[in-house]
Structure formats: C-alpha cells, structure tokens
C-alpha cells in the first residue's frame, strides 16, 4: 500500500462522510427511503487491501457518521460487518481470479452488470443489518423490510452514480 493509495482512501473518507452528514442526512423520501452513501468508502477500497485494514477503516468511518447521527456504535458496527464480508462476496462474484490478477473494483474492471450486483448485494447486507439493529426487535418486521427495500434502491443508485461521477472528475 503506497502513499497515494492512503491519500486516496483518506480523501474518500472525508468526501463521503461530509456528503452523508451534511446533505444526505436531511434527504429522506416518504419517511422510508434513507441513503447511506458512506459505505462507498468500504465498497471501493482496492481489492488488495488486507481485511484488517479494511475493518479499521470501516470502524473509523462508522464512528464518524455515528457522531453526527447520535447513534454510538450503530453505523460503526454495520460498516465493520460489510468490511468483513466484502472479501467473501468478491470471492463468490469472481471465483476464477486470485491474488495474482487482482480485481479492479470499478465499472471498467468488473463490467456494469457485475459492478451493480456487487454494490446492491453489499448495500442490502449493510441496510438489513443496520435497520434490524436499529429497530432492536423483529416486531416491526414489515415496516423495517419496507425501509430496507426502499433504502437499498435509493442508496445503490446514489452510490453508483456518485462513483461514476467522481471517477470521471478524476479522469478529466
């Protein structure tokens, strides 16, 4: 991991956390569709990142978001969860590739279809974990499920578009 990668990761933590805290926190559609774009930090870590590093980055990002949401530990826990699971998902989606030929996590590197599948799966896991943990019980199962579905759609679209947009900014 060289300095450039570290700087890139730090920048992405700052950008996505600020976006999340100042803009998307106020953006809730119909009281059910939330957008948690900060998980992009974890989703788009280079695939060569060791799991331990990814876990620590996820924890820091989650704690930062928690401070603004007044929910100590909730987002951190969910973020750590997907950072841990990410490796398995990548293995399942790309069984043929090993460490030698690394996977580039981007539209060009994965193809649009698989890229979207990757985002949606991880977003779904994150949101399911987060909303059920937040609800604390399974008593509001239908309501929580509705929130999860609506939020997964909303978040996935925003994450995808933002990724493509930031990528094009960097290239131009």
């Amino acid at each position: 991991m060289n300095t450039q990668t570290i700087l890139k990761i730090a920048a992405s933590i700052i950008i996505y956390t600020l976006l999340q805290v100042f803009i998307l926190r106020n953006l809730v559609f119909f009281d059910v569709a939330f957008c948690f774009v900060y998980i992009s930090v974890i989703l788009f870590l280079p695939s060569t990142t060791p799991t331990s590093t990814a876990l620590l980055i996820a924890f820091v990002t989650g704690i930062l978001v928690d401070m603004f949401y007044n929910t100590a530990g909730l987002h951190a826990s969910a973020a750590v969860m997907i950072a841990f699971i990410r490796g398995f998902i990548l293995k399942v989606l790309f069984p043929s590739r090993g460490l030698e030929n690394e996977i580039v996590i981007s539209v060009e590197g994965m193809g649009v279809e698989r890229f979207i599948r990757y985002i949606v799966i991880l977003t779904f896991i994150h949101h399911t974990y987060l909303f059920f943990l937040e609800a604390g019980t399974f008593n509001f199962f239908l309501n929580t499920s509705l929130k999860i579905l609506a939020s997964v759609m909303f978040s996935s679209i925003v994450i995808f578009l933002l990724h493509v947009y930031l990528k094009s900014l960097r290239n131009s």
Partner: protein
Amino acid sequence: MSQLLGILYKSRHFFLFLALQIICFYLMSKNNVYWDVSFFNTTNSVVARSLEVSQKTNEFVNLGKVNDQLARENSRLRKQLTDMQEMTSGIPGYKPDSLMAQRFDYTVAKVVGSTHNLTDNFITIDKGTDDGVRAGMGVISPQGVVGQVAYANKKYSRIYSVLHSRQMVSAEVLNAKLRENSTVALGIAKWDGTNPHYVRLNTVDRFKPVAKGDSVVTSLQNPIFPPHVMIGKISEVSNTTSEAFHNISVRLSTDFSSLIYVYVVKNKLIESQQEAETNSGIK
C-alpha cells in the same frame, strides 16, 4: 502450540472483526452512559458547530416559508387586536355590538409589483376575488396605511397607493392636549405628487392644537380602514393667520419602496353602512 498460534494468526481478521464488533455493541448498550454523554452525541463541540452550519443553511433556504407563516400569524393577531380595541372603546355608556366590533377581517397578500415615484402609483398583489378581495377594500402594511383596492380579478388585485393623486385617507391627529380637551382633529390626508415620503394634511381646523411630531392615524369615521392605523408623523406645521386650516406635512410611516407583505382589510358591515347612508331616502 505453534499450530495453535498458526490457526490464531490465520483467523486474525476474524478476531479483529469480533473485537471491533464488541466495541460497537459496548457503545450501543444503553447502560454505557459515559461515552454516550461525553463523546458520542451532537453536543460534542466540533460536531455541534458543523451541524449548526448545516442548520443555518437550512434556515436560509426556508426563510420564504417562515416569512409566510409570520405574515399569516400577524394578520391573525391584528384581527384579535382590532376586535379587542373595538370592544373596549373607553367611552362611558357606549357598548359596542360584538358584530360591530368584529367587522374587520384581514387577508395576507404578497406584493408582486409596485411603483412609488410616478404621479399615480399602483401596487399589484397576488390575492384576488378567489380570496375575497373586492374593489374598494383598504390595504395596510405592518408599517402603516398603504391604499385601497382599485380592481380585483380572480388571482390578482391592483391597489391605489396612498401615493396616487386621487387617493385620500380620512385621518386624525393624536396628541395629549386633544385627548384632554376630548376633541378630535380630523382631516384628509392626500398626496401632493412630489415626494413619496410625505403627504399633506390640509383640512385640520386651525384652532386644534397640533404640533410637530404628533402621530397621524386613520380616523374613526371611515369604513375602509380600521381606526387608528398609523399613517405617519407630522413633520411640519405652518399656519398663516388668514387661513382656516393648518398646513401640515406628514412623513409617511410606510416605506413604499420596500413593501413585501400587505394586509387587505375587509369590513363585513360596509354594505349595510353604505345602504343606510345612500338609500334611506332622506334628502
């Protein structure tokens, strides 16, 4: 032993994951008051300050809505105030009918266009007959008198501003001496067409004690405006002994160049008053 260590090393990611999750759950548990109170909440100064900034932007974006709400609230309060004032007139032996006391109603309207430096000035507002605005109704602003509705269609109305050559307002001067003598100094305020900050009040009896600085308000004897709405303050009084009237210049309290909200005044009893005045058949 080395095998055991090897297994532990292999699953180090899992142990880190577990450790972090334990920290998270420890933070989440409600028993853990210290962290919750001291660090992880929005009173944390850095967090609080940044949230304040975001809140301020929100406020700025919502200013229009807040203005609307305040204007509506003001019109409601104004209605209550006039009702109260009318109920307690202070004249012994006179008890106003409650229908009479509550005859004034206010509609909030937004100014969409206005002039103030022509000879005949008009103001356009965004309320029309759909909201109960009719030609002839009075219009006031939070600062004072504005004018009278000239024409109303479904959505918009045009208003004769006080700064119109044919617009006149029945006015009254208020001061302590007049109150002591229990007399009323009535007059008609009319714009002379020159300075948009001043109107003339030329029909006040010369023997009424008026002075510079006295308030000029709408009189009790007019069906259009509620009584005692501010018109302005006397800025100059000159009288030559040969004339019957004071020569008074009044500085308007309404700033016509910065009108945003106005209240259209609806007098519910105006028709019956006019009917009594015109159709009684007495010549």
